């Protein structure tokens, strides 16, 4: 008779069999969610406060947000064990609480309500802003307000998912400001992707655009570093001793240090872009910001899962990084394709001061 042996310490046998439940593609998914919701928030802020630079960048924000929003649900789709049944989430969404189905599924709410709402709002706002020239109308402002609300929920979604539905990890106790961290990352990522798209469009770095977007990254990066530092400081000083905190810090600290360095580099380069408008600094800023955001998402989507529910061991799972890379590249290419289609066939509007698109002259904003 041989008993169940625990090669990595005390963990549940099903944890050994399941390994990492959510695959690394979920990190890519959350990054795409950040890009879509962050650019939507920048667009909405531009409309609500009538920011002229954001108004001139609005076609780009709408296209980026739509191109990523159309694609990002492919991430969880690739993670499903029964992807053939993915549409069940729209047919049988668990959105009401009852004796038989207590609680409400945040996953169902986001996929079947918030995702269509985000896309519809973006399409309607895009139509009003780009075709009807209703940037300053009350209707546009009301829709922008709703869009900010929807995008805020999306930007903090993964933190809410962990807090609300996964009680065993108690992340709300360990990192109570995680939603704010994710929001700051979202805004910084949107700024970085916005500048990247702008450079690709215009092959130059226009001062007003780079200033507002680099300032966004600078503020978000600095705030992120401070907030995350205080949360980690709290864990190391006031919450040490329990197995939960010890194992959490073991898993969390190595990649979190990388995230810290990347956020710092991103903030410094954003500062340089803000004062000098340097193209090299802009590229460093874009790369470090996207990497910072991505690695932090990887930390929560992948690494945290390796903590056993017994809090006494770490699940060692082999990740299929080749599949993840191919799926990620596929998502990026598909969103670029959608962006290209939107830009050349649908929107056909100049970005900032480019008054000529494909030989046709458009009115500048």
């Amino acid at each position, binding site marked *: *008779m041989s*008993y*169940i042996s625990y090669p990595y310490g*005390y*963990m*549940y*046998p*099903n*944890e050994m*069999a*399941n390994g990492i*439940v*959510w695959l690394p593609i979920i990190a890519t998914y959350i990054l795409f969610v950040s890009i879509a919701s962050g650019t939507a928030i920048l667009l909405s802020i531009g409309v609500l406060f009538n920011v002229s630079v954001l108004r001139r960048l609005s076609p780009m924000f709408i296209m980026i947000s739509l191109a990523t929003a159309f694609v990002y649900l492919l991430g*969880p789709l690739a*993670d*499903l*064990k*029964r*992807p053939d*049944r*993915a549409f*069940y*989430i729209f*047919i*049988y*969404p*668990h959105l009401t609480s009852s*004796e*038989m*189905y*207590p*609680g*409400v*599924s*945040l*996953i*169902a709410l986001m*996929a079947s309500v918030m995702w269509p709402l985000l896309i519809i709002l973006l399409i309607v706002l895009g139509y009003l802003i780009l075709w009807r020239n209703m940037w300053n109308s009350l209707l546009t402002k009301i829709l922008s307000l709703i869009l900010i609300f929807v995008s805020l929920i999306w930007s903090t979604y993964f933190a809410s*998912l962990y807090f*609300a*539905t*996964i*009680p*065993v990890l108690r992340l709300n106790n360990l990192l109570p400001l995680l939603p704010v961290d994710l929001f700051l990352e979202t805004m910084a990522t949107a700024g970085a992707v916005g500048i990247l798209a702008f450079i690709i469009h215009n092959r130059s770095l226009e001062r007003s655009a780079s200033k507002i977007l680099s300032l966004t990254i600078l503020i978000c990066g600095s705030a992120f570093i401070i907030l995350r530092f205080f949360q980690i400081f709290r864990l190391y000083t006031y919450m040490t001793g329990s197995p939960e905190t010890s194992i959490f810090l073991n898993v969390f600290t190595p990649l979190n240090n990388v995230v810290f360095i990347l956020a710092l580099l991103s903030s410094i380069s954003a500062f340089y872009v803000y004062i000098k408008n340097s193209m090299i600094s802009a590229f460093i800023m874009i790369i470090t910001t996207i990497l910072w955001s991505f690695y932090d998402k990887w930390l929560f989507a992948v690494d945290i*899962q390796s903590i056993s*529910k*017994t*809090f*006494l061991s770490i699940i060692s799972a082999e990740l299929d990084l080749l599949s993840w890379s191919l799926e990620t590249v596929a998502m990026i290419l598909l969103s670029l394709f959608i962006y290209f289609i939107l830009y050349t066939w649908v929107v056909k509007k100049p970005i900032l001061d480019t008054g000529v698109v494909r030989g046709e002259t458009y009115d500048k904003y």
Partner: protein
Amino acid sequence: MFIDVSKCYGCMACVVACAAENNVPVGVFRTWVERHILPSGTVAFVPKLCNHCDNPPCVKPCPTGATYRTEDGLVLVDPLKCIGCGACIIACPYGARYYNPITGVVDKCTFCNHRIKIGRPPACVEACPTRARVFGDLNDPNSEIRKIVDKIPTKVIKPETGAEPQIYYYSLPEVGSR
């Protein structure tokens, strides 16, 4: 269910009976027996399974309602509605859920629902040679399990999660209560 840890001597009859009754694939478990060495040097065997919680954390995140709670308090999975997102596996504090590699959906202990409907106890309970497991209706004041739970000081695993687990343990060692 009530489990008397002091009566379990780790024969694994329950694990085998469960696997045979429910076609549980090799490598995953609806019930398992943990072997813990106590500080005194003796060994304790702690049988574990789904706790069929009163406030089940696994039901809330299920996006399609494939996981549900019956009137009798059983937490079950509808294999025809499960999309295999794994949210319930991550949410379950007890590691009681797994991906069934044959069906591709999430699977777990059903308390042998098909047996209790016809008045038979779950396979693990029937197979236990020392009657370490007692099954019954906790809501029935005249049931054997209700009388045991009322009389003997029992513990549940991870009550701090707020899940209100319904597997009551007697003589559960600290080391096995994770």
